[in-house]
């Protein structure tokens, strides 16, 4: 999508963003008048949302005397970016909000998210305490390579296993599946069928939407497929591996018969015992632990040549403001939230990007039990399937249920299109996306 330069709204956004560095580098902008209420947008609506709300409440309680408060506003995830863009276009963007590393290239390119390298130093944010991986994931090499996100958590997708089902099937919970063969053995042992139909999925899947898409994405990368080359110039590298992965997902339903297409809500279904192995993220932990589900989390098995899984990094991004003094207050808030993210990364979501938090002796014992959250943290070592950091990142993401990828794959899952046709369409569309920048 192209935009003319020299246009009123865009001029405002770009000018404000580019002026930010020089304007703030030599001398600090005057601080906004206190008391100040920062507007914070979030799309966290899973069980992690409760913990995040608690974080904000903790901040407000701790900073009341300093005259800085955060007003949390929930925005639906699928509308989030559009609303931020619209708000920025009118000069009324929220002060800061939740972002996912790699998905905000458009916001960075258009100057809606503020580059944070210089600002964060002024705000005394200690970059040395952040892991290199997290800081690297928060940048967009194609668009200036500046830091556009303060990392808050690192997440990997790992299988949660219902331990009641494991016991019932006579499996040894201490020896979880490590590869494709054992994974399918476990899945078969825990699957329940009635009249030839799967009524309890050994591997939790849905007939459409996100779950088969992300499964395909992980398996495809394990088999050697790449959505984009490292230089971001070639799309769908090794398409044959992508096709094999499509067949692998189809086989779960039709050949191995360990998954049902008829699950409507995967989260609910796993919680009610209608699925045995469910690969998902740490945002589910709080909900399942609270409801008393007997489960453990294991590492994603190796299905292809290399063990890999999906990686997601959540963080806070600052949006362009008319009143520059607000950045200081926003950074103060973000710093506090980052410094005090122990709760967030032990109960809310995945691993901490802060070395000091990871090094705390109670990091493994605090929060939810290690048997349910440990794999999410230990599995980060092979969680390398992140986002493609281009403006059309949302078309590439495997963690989606309604983007072009998911919709095209759905035609395969439902038998409407042959695998070859779907792969060709994906390749063409992605190549066009990469070519457009």
């Amino acid at each position, binding site marked *: *999508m192209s935009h003319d330069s020299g246009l009123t709204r865009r001029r405002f956004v770009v000018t404000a963003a580019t002026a930010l560095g020089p304007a703030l580098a030599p001398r600090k902008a005057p601080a906004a008048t206190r008391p100040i209420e920062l507007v914070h947008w979030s799309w966290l609506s899973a069980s992690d949302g409760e913990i995040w709300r608690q974080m904000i409440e903790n901040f407000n309680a701790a900073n009341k005397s300093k005259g800085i408060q955060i007003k949390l506003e929930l925005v639906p995830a699928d509308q989030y970016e559009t609303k931020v863009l619209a708000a920025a276009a009118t000069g009324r963007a929220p002060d800061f909000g939740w972002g996912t590393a790699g998905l905000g290239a458009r916001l960075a390119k258009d100057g809606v998210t503020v580059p944070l390298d210089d600002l964060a130093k002024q705000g005394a944010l200690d970059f040395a305490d952040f892991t290199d991986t997290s800081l690297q994931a928060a940048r967009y090499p194609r668009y200036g390579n500046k830091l556009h996100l303060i990392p808050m958590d690192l997440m990997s997708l790992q299988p949660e296993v219902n331990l009641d089902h494991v016991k019932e099937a006579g499996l040894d919970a201490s020896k979880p599946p490590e590869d494709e063969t054992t994974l399918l053995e476990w899945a078969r042992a825990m699957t329940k069928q009635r009249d030839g139909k799967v009524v309890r999925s050994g591997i939790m899947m*849905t*007939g459409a939407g996100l779950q088969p898409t992300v499964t395909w994405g992980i398996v495809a990368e394990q088999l050697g497929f790449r959505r984009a080359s490292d230089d971001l110039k070639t799309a769908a590298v090794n398409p044959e591996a992508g096709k094999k992965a499509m067949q692998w997902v189809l086989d779960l339903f039709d050949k191995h018969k360990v998954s049902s297409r*008829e699950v409507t*809500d995967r989260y609910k279904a796993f919680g009610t015992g209608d699925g045995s192995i469910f690969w998902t993220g740490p945002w589910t932990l709080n909900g399942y632990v609270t409801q008393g589900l007997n489960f453990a989390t294991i590492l994603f098995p190796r299905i292809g040549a290399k063990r890999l899984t999906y990686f997601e990094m959540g963080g806070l991004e600052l949006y362009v403001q008319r009143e520059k003094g607000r950045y200081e207050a926003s950074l103060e808030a973000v710093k506090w939230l980052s410094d005090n993210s122990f709760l967030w990364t032990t109960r809310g979501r995945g691993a901490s990007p802060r070395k000091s938090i990871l090094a705390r002796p109670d990091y493994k014992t605090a929060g939810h039990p290690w048997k349910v959250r440990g794999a999410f943290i230990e599995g980060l070592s092979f969680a390398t399937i992140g986002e493609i950091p281009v403006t059309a990142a*949302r078309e590439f993401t495997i963690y989606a249920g309604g983007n072009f990828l998911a*919709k095209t794959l759905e035609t395969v899952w*439902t038998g*409407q299109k042959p695998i070859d046709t779907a792969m060709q369409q994906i390749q063409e569309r992605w190549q066009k996306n990469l070519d457009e920048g």
Partner: protein
Amino acid sequence: MTRAGGGRRRRIDWSGYAFVGFFTVPFCLFTILPVLFGGYVGFTEWGILGTPKWVGLANFREAFRDEWVGRAFLNVLLYGLCIVPGVGLLGLVFALFVNQGWPLSALARTCFFAPTVVSAPVIGLVWVWMLDTQFGIVNQSLAMLGIGPVPWLTSTRWSLVGVSLASIWWDLGLPFVLFLAALQEVPGVLYEAAAVDGANRAQQFRFVTLPHLRPTVSLVVTLQVIATMRIFSQVYVMTNGGPAGSSSSVIHYIYTTAIVRQLLGYASAVSILLFGAILLVTLVQRLLIRERGTWLGRAA
């Protein structure tokens, strides 16, 4: 709004404009202008920031090539074939039932109208539970009749039917009330005359009731067709258009294109196509039902 004054210059009475302005100004600002702007955006490429870039008919050409647009329009047609007759017939049956004035008819009237006042997302969420393949009450009930589980929302074959069921239940209230009001307007003497002439109940309904309901039928069908062409909330909440676009609608496609993908120009072009389709269908309907009354076998 002028006043002639015995050879003097005509004077404009601004108070009239002021009264009209209370409606006209907001209407122009919040309806006419956005519609015109939307029409303009349909010929541009625009992603919220910056100024729309003129691309002529490119968006329309793309829309005609886009398989998902075609599928969405086809789905809307299928929704229409499910929902419009469903709502019309059930609304009429319920109205006839309540019109009998049997005991508890007031309660029945409330029950039949109640779903209309519930918001669409709530309806959607309730029906997602009811239509769940494994533990939904609908499939549990069917199981008692020996019918196997139907994947109402998870298969390409049934998802559209599942959403239609919820829509019929939700949309029933207004047609029901309209039919009830129309039934109560039919003069009782006509039934008496028909009875004297030897007409049975079915003939009375065919030759007395139905002709009197013709304007209401026309209204209900027109309103329902338009409502169905704009179907969104139920789709969004119940299936999000899936699986594989089998339950998507044009508005749902416009929503995902504009709000999720931020292709506002393309979404506007599809909106213009939808507007054209609604206009065409409405005109055809008027021609068939209101002007000629063809399907009722009557000349106007």
